[in-house]
């Protein structure tokens, strides 16, 4: 599949615990094509978070192969992984994870510091994205002065600053009320229409409905993988 963004084959991940080796993921196979919008679902402890960490290059698989953008991630060192997180992947967290000491504009521009973009360009690009998520007038506000929904928009803008191919969202609406959640999902829908691949972890059915493909996890394995059936009834 030449246009595959994520290619996972026979991937397993185990953790050392006091009770011995704990297998969090067992022989996962998953292909995600460019432009897909995919929802990952499953109960706590089913391996969703472990998968997201590996997809986000925060963690490495124990066994198996993970190809991001056609490039095998296994064997990359910490700096190379950092560069992938910086350039290829955008993260949106449940808890927003903005730096409290910085203004919104500086928060959005932060990833650009780590790839050596000049100050003027950094701030210009951040300002453009802030406008795009509808907070153009809040450039110098501090994160603790705005609402959760607004913080999540800023967090999305930060994830987009380096034009990533892949957007990873770990329960982005988990801390928001349903109305604000829908607003955030509208942004994801729009981004997906622009061609960005989105992987979304969620518990909520109505949020998962925005994705085009539903992957369910249970006990470290994929138990179902099917297109979204519209009308709001989950498969």
């Amino acid at each position: 599949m030449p246009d595959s963004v994520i290619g996972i084959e026979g991937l397993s991940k185990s953790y050392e615990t006091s009770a011995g080796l704990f297998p969090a993921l067992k022989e996962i196979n998953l292909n995600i094509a460019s432009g897909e919008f995919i929802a990952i679902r499953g109960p706590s402890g089913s391996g969703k978070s472990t998968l997201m960490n590996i997809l986000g290059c925060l963690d490495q698989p124990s066994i198996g192969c993970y190809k991001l953008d056609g490039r095998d991630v296994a064997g990359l060192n910490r700096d190379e992984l950092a560069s992938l997180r910086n350039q290829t992947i955008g993260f949106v967290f449940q808890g927003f994870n903005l730096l409290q000491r910085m203004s919104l504009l500086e928060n959005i521009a932060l990833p650009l510091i780590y790839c050596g973009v000049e100050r003027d360009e950094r701030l210009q690009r951040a300002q453009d994205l802030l406008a795009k998520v509808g907070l153009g007038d809040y450039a110098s506000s501090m994160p603790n002065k705005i609402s959760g929904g607004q913080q999540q928009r800023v967090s999305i803008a930060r994830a987009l600053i380096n034009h990533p191919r892949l957007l990873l969202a770990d329960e982005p609406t988990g801390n928001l009320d349903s109305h604000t959640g829908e607003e955030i999902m509208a942004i994801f829908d729009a981004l997906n229409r622009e061609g960005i691949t989105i992987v979304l972890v969620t518990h909520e059915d109505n949020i998962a409905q925005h994705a085009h493909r539903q992957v369910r996890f249970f006990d470290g394995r994929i138990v179902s993988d099917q297109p979204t059936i519209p009308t709001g009834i989950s498969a």
Partner: protein
Amino acid sequence: MIFAMLGEAWRAMGANRLRTFLTMLGMVIGVGAVVLMMSIGQGAQYSIKRSIEAMGSNLFILLAGHTSTSGARSASGGAHTLTVDDADAISELQGVQAVAPIHPGSSQIVYGPNNWNTSITGTTPSYLDARSWDVVEGSAFTESDVRSATRVALIGKTVAENLFGTEDPVGKTIRIGQSPFIILGALASKGQSMSGRDQDDTVLIPLTTAQRKLFGSQFPGSVRMIMVQASTPEIMTSVEKSMNSLLRQRHRIREGMDNDYYLRNLTAVADSAAESTRIMSLLLGAIASVSLLVGGIGIMNIMLVSVTERTREIGIRMAIGARERDILMQFLLEAIIISVVGCFIGLMLGTGGALLTEALTGTLVIISGSSVLIAFSVAATVGIFFGFYPARKAARLDPIEALRFQ
């Protein structure tokens, strides 16, 4: 890039001003103490050096032996065992630069309505060389004055002030004892000797004049003491040895008998004074350096706390693409800024304290570029050294663990 990081470090420090200030205070006190102590130590060393130079360098004093009358021994110099001929013979020795026979005494001196009692030193022109003593006004007497025992004199600053006040003494005639003397020149000020004696309270006259015309002498040609200057400090031991063998030979002292004179090495006294000052300033510097070290440990302590506190922030930064070296630099820069800024403030306080000490106590202090440079580079090194471990700890964090940190 570096500016962005500097800005971030500044902001992080500003986020907890009191803590930053207290951390910096350790550095401020350390550097301040080092600068202050080094300034005082160097000032003391300089004072000692100056009084040694005032005395003259590489000097020996030969004193005539003592007599014993009915068991009561006179002071050294009481016997007439040293002569001008001894002095001439010593001046032939290798490594001897200047030899000045000295016939001391004291007398009342009078000029107009003023009079003053001072020490009179009968000697030769080489005395001025040996003690590196300059004539600031007029000129010194010469060998021919010594040969013909003329009544001329050089006067010290204290004497000039007491007899002449602001008047120019050169060319005036004063009375020493009963005889009139013409003042040829005024001597430069030498200040206090190391024993506290006023070295400027003296009058120099030709040796022969003192012997024949002022104090008289039972044994013509004998002198109380001879000042000998070696040409370099290194050969003082060999000069001492050859002087001893020469004098023992000239005085016909048999093997196993005591010398009939005393030979003193003045430099040895001066050297031990200089050495003890040097040790004292080293000690001061060492004690002050300990506080610099404590300041460094304070920085390390606070940086470790800061890394722990900001674990989540580090995780976020890593998630959006910060490399190990970015995190390392961020924390290292903070430590360096704290130490360098603390160092600057410490330098200023230390310098101010040194100047205040000088103003209040009159102790000479010297603030040298080298001590400032040393304090500064030590502080920067301390910052890097103690900042590195916490910074590396931050950079090595596992991004997942760090993100999970609450």
